[in-house]
């Protein structure tokens, strides 16, 4: 393959001349490097500004440790719940016909277009100490806002569509014939799901869970509103990054940020691996 060749499918009449091609490639690469790659590089450069030992020492700080623990706890609760919900919703929507299906899909998609801060605001208004429900829950000794349940709820809201959205187009395309065959042959519903449906959707499910997890661990806006930012108690990793940065503890802030950036890079690597190896089993063709 020669440098900057046109797509092999192109004939001479349907591509641009070499100088034009080179200029467009250079423009795209430069733009992407400035806009996207540079911020990523800065995260690691700033984390390691005082060397590896300073960076690693900042991770040993009790606040950083409790933030990592909290973020892992929140993801461990929210991601499985959303996976179960996503599978249930995709099953109900793709295996049955009922009225109001379009409305249900719109409601599931809604959190994608709501600002994270507005999501947090909604939860505070519903469960905050001066709302009816929230006041009662606080009196019972189960506060939601400024506590773990609120953070989990905010994370659930923000990551709500991830799994369902990956599964629905795929399961529509796969149809119902295989499940119907299994049922006709006498398999129970659960067995049909486990041995027929699950193998068909596993890569798409993994894909959805991967994206859901990345977002759950990195969510900032919604969690910032509901968490109360209590150091050592309700400060997740992103919240702790903000607190450290505002206290001019740059190395500590960027080290924690680098941990999340590494998670993002691993997520992207796995995502592009899945994209390449199981493209046909991830999303229905032609669905943006």
């Amino acid at each position, binding site marked *: 393959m020669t440098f900057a060749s046109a797509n092999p499918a192109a004939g001479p009449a349907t591509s*641009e001349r070499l100088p034009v091609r080179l200029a467009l490639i250079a423009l795209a690469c430069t733009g992407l490097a400035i806009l996207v790659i*540079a911020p990523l590089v800065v995260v690691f450069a700033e984390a390691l500004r005082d060397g590896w030992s300073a960076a690693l020492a900042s991770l040993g700080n009790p606040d950083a440790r409790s933030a990592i623990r909290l973020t892992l706890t929140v993801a461990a609760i929210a991601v499985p719940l959303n996976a179960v919900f996503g599978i249930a919703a995709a099953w109900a929507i793709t295996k049955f016909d009922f009225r109001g299906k379009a409305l249900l899909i719109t409601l599931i998609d809604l959190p994608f277009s709501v600002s994270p801060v507005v999501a947090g605001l909604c939860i505070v208004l519903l469960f905050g100490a001066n709302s009816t429900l929230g006041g009662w829950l606080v009196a019972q000794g189960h506060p939601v806002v400024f506590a773990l349940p609120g953070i989990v709820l905010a994370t659930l809201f923000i990551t709500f569509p991830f799994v369902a959205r990956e599964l629905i187009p795929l399961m529509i395309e796969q149809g119902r014939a295989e499940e119907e065959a299994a049922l006709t042959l006498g398999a129970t519903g659960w067995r049909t799901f486990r041995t027929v449906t699950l193998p068909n959707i596993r890569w798409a499910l993994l894909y959805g869970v991967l994206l859901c997890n990345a977002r759950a661990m990195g969510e900032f806006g919604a969690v910032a509103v509901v968490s109360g930012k209590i150091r050592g108690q309700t400060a997740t990793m992103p919240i702790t*990054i903000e607190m450290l940065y505002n206290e001019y503890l740059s190395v500590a802030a960027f080290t924690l940020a680098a941990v999340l950036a590494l998670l993002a890079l691993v997520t992207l690597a796995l995502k592009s691996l899945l994209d390449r190896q199981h493209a046909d089993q991830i999303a229905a063709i032609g669905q943006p």
Partner: protein
Amino acid sequence: MTALPRHRRAMPGFGLTMGLTLTTVCLVVLLPVGALLWQGASAGPAALWDVGSRPRTLSALALSFRLSALAALFNLAFGVLLAWVLVRYRFPGRRIMDAAVDLPFALPTAVAGIALTTLYAPNGAFGALATPFGWRIAYTQAGIFIALVFVGLPFVVRTVQPVLETLDREVEEASATLGASRWTTVRRVILPALLPAALTGFALSLARAVGEYGSVIFIAGNIPLRTEIAPLLIVIQLEEFDYPAAAAIGIAMLAMSFTLLLAINLLQIWTRRRTGDV
């Protein structure tokens, strides 16, 4: 063998999965959004209007919308270019570039926020380049614009890419055979075919930018009336326990989200009709 009769309820699990779905949708989405609307309704339209017409609220909403629209426009142009280069050309590093487009989706917004601020601060790597000209990027509206470009970048690329991949080459050949220059073909044949998908990406990018918080607040400077975005104003009102004011801005933003969601759905229907997908 005769065809199997299609029973509506032959497939099991409707009650279980539908029940679970509706319960979760109600608990996680409908109740919280309902609480926001209820707060607005119980405050009354007069109170909402009073908050909504304060100069600080109006200026925050206008700033959020104006800069988001500018950032989405930039992403529209650069996103189409990126999609074009990634689909049509083969060059070393193409796969890495393709994966890097998703980085703004994967990188937590707080991480992006502090990284962009460090980069564009007056003593930062890019900020220092602007200082000799007397320009400041971080802590001005230019900084907010850059953060919004960052978070919205993947949308146009990812909506245009699949359409570009399935575009029929024969149409381009026909255009060339009929004597059109390459530029004419691009302008009159290819770009119109990409338009619905590109506009969908534009609307998605706009919707994301209007609500964006984490990557903006660090670089914005947050000066009332000048660099204070609407989501930040909600947070400030909440910290002052002014719930009606927070709800008023929240409802305004929710209305904006709904309008954009509707526009995106209409655009997607248009895209599918154009590209002939089901």
